[in-house]
């Protein structure tokens, strides 16, 4: 569990800080700009994605610490809700933060399904929301809104560049496999779009049920199909299992494996040699050689005792984005129009390299090509420069 010292929840906080009670009770803006803002963290603190939730949280807190525990001159009070990555509870959890705890800013979440439900509530209530991970395209397309921002990526962004990569490597006939759920399909579609356009052919597409991780049957069929390459998206447990089974089935090295970076992020240690040679595209790589990243990895390591990862970065940047916005409006969270405008124009100096935001509030960022060599994620270069999500269907 996260070991950085911060308010674990509302009750404890109110208990410890009289000021908190005062402000929480007072009508907001009675005295001009408030001295503090309430940030609601709606993230998974239990279940499969716990680690992601904690890294995002700690990334955010790390940036806050760097800025002297203030964002745009105002102090921050945290309220935390464990969303369990459970879509059915998503709306109630979001409502809990917005309606019950009356947070000024909502940060969340990891799971796409939960994020979409959360964003819908945020749209209804008009609460400023920053999505620090969930890549569902729809969040910055159909669901986009003036008060919805994203500091991570869109599923399309993370996969589209890989189509050309695979073609450049000379593979024309590729088998696809991912879980049969929204994120999985969006990832594969992102890849297919550029790959097929470039003349590639899809040998076959496998969509096992989420979160089934018995891949043996599919691997056997892939081996029989003998495609030039396999493009896959799994994450966490599924990713680890797939990578190991792929090697165990004797396909490693025979049929090269490609995918979005989540395939290898966070599982390299556990996967060991089985992950060797896998090529992935992502908007970040731990080994990125830029000063911000080097410093970020150190201080994150120092603060938490854990190795940083892409999720920590996304949390870290969420804080940066909010800080820039608040600075522009001198901490007056009430001045929404100006605040959103400032955030939209923000240029974030992130460990992943500088990035800006599109009209639909999705990062315009470089996508890197990485490959696993000797258990390390090595950056081979930039697969797509300043890539912008098409944002089809965004009417805001």
């Amino acid at each position, binding site marked *: 569990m996260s070991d950085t010292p911060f308010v674990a*929840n509302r009750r404890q906080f109110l208990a410890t800080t009289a000021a908190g009670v005062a402000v929480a009770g007072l009508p907001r803006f009675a005295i001009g700009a408030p001295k503090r803002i309430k940030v609601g963290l709606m993230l998974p603190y*239990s279940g499969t994605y716990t680690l992601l939730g904690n890294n995002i949280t700690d990334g955010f807190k790390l940036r806050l610490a760097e800025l002297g525990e203030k964002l745009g001159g105002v102090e921050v009070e945290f309220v935390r809700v464990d969303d369990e990555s459970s879509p059915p509870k998503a709306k109630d959890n979001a409502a809990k933060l917005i309606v019950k705890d009356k947070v000024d800013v909502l940060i969340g979440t990891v*799971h796409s*399904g939960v994020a979409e*439900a959360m964003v819908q509530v945020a749209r209804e209530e008009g609460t400023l929301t920053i999505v620090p991970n969930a890549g569902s395209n729809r969040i910055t397309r159909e669901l986009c809104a003036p008060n919805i921002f994203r500091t991570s990526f869109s599923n399309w962004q993370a996969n589209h560049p890989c189509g050309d990569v695979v073609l450049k490597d000379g593979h024309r006939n590729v088998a696809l496999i991912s879980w049969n759920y*929204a994120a999985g399909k969006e990832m594969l579609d992102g890849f297919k779009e550029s790959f097929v356009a470039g003349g590639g052919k899809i040998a076959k597409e496998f969509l096992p049920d989420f979160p089934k991780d018995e891949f043996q049957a599919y691997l056997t069929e892939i081996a029989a199909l003998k495609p030039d390459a396999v493009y896959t998206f799994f994450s966490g447990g599924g990713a680890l299992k797939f990578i190991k089974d792929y090697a165990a089935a004797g396909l490693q090295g025979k049929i090269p494996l490609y995918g979005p970076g989540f395939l290898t992020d966070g599982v390299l240690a556990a996967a060991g040699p089985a992950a060797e040679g896998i090529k992935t595209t992502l908007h970040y790589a731990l080994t990125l050689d830029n000063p911000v990243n080097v410093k970020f990895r150190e201080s994150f390591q120092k603060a938490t005792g854990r190795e940083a990862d892409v999720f920590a970065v996304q949390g870290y940047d969420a804080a940066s984005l909010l800080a820039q916005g608040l600075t522009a409006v001198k901490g007056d969270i009430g001045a929404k129009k100006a605040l959103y405008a400032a955030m939209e124009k923000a240029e974030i100096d992130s460990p992943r390299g500088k990035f800006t935001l599109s009209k639909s509030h999705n990062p315009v960022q470089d996508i890197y090509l990485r490959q696993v060599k000797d258990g390390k994620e090595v950056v081979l270069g930039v697969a797509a420069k300043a890539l912008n999500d098409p944002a089809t269907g965004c009417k805001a």
Partner: protein
Amino acid sequence: MQHQKLALPLLFAALAVGIALFPLVGDTFYIRLVAKIVVLGILAMSLDLLVGYTGLISLGHAAFSGTAGYVAAALINKAGILDLPTLLAASLTASGLVALVIGWISVRTTGIYFIMITLALGQMVFFFFHDVSFWGGADGVNLADKPAVAVGETVLLDLSVRINFYYTALACLVLVYLLLTMVLHAPFGQVLRGIRINEARTKALGHDVQRYKLACFVISGLIAGLAGFLEVVRGGFISPAHVNWHESAMVLIVVILGGMGTLVGPVVGAFALVLLEDYVADLTDHWKLVIGLFVIGVVLFLPDGLIGPLAKGGKRRLCLFRRPKETPRESIGDA
């Protein structure tokens, strides 16, 4: 028995009035929470008809509410139908049919076999909505809009307005309570009670118990469907997790927690569990541990539920200590 006859209906009346007045005083969040509780209460009541009154322990109840919810969602999002009566009719028909099929297969067995089969068939429904991408896949789907009752251009009841939904749900709760009370006092209900206490003898007295059990299953499924429909309208969201057996188990907990075989108990249980969850989740990230221990505690020390003392008349107890006589073999039942 005697004072139970009065105590329980009075308790329900008090609850209903309390819920009706709450919006005048309560803050927005808790009004939402109560709406959630009311819907859960309806679902738990429908399960009480099976578990508490007929002795049929179903672990697949979420299949019925879930089906109704999904059908409503699909009609709203894909066919753009917003007419409340139409949607309700369609959803209930769907949940009723599912109940009919699952019931037809499972009422032929009893005891643990019944439990297992309802669980397994419930999961089958779960995977149906989970796998077939027409329904929206693992992440679930959001409602594009909320139903309303309109005559021509004039909208009589718009459920997207929270307070409207609140009182609609409350009305349904009261209605379901009255309906079930009626059914249970009718000859039909007498036979159900007979089946719970001594199925073989009920049969020997000339009642086609299979048929009664199936009918009971379908009625329960229909009411569960109503709850599922309300839930999807309330949350504006439906996902496979709504159909998962964990959901069914939690509803079962709600029934026991409140006190089964009492109708009002399940509503009390809904209040207790939802409020507990809301409170504990604030205290610790390991709140599931607390809930788990709580469940175990209830099972071990509170078999009659919170309103057990009120509901006494010893009927549950006697039933508990009658069962062990049945050997697993018997409990596998007369197929």
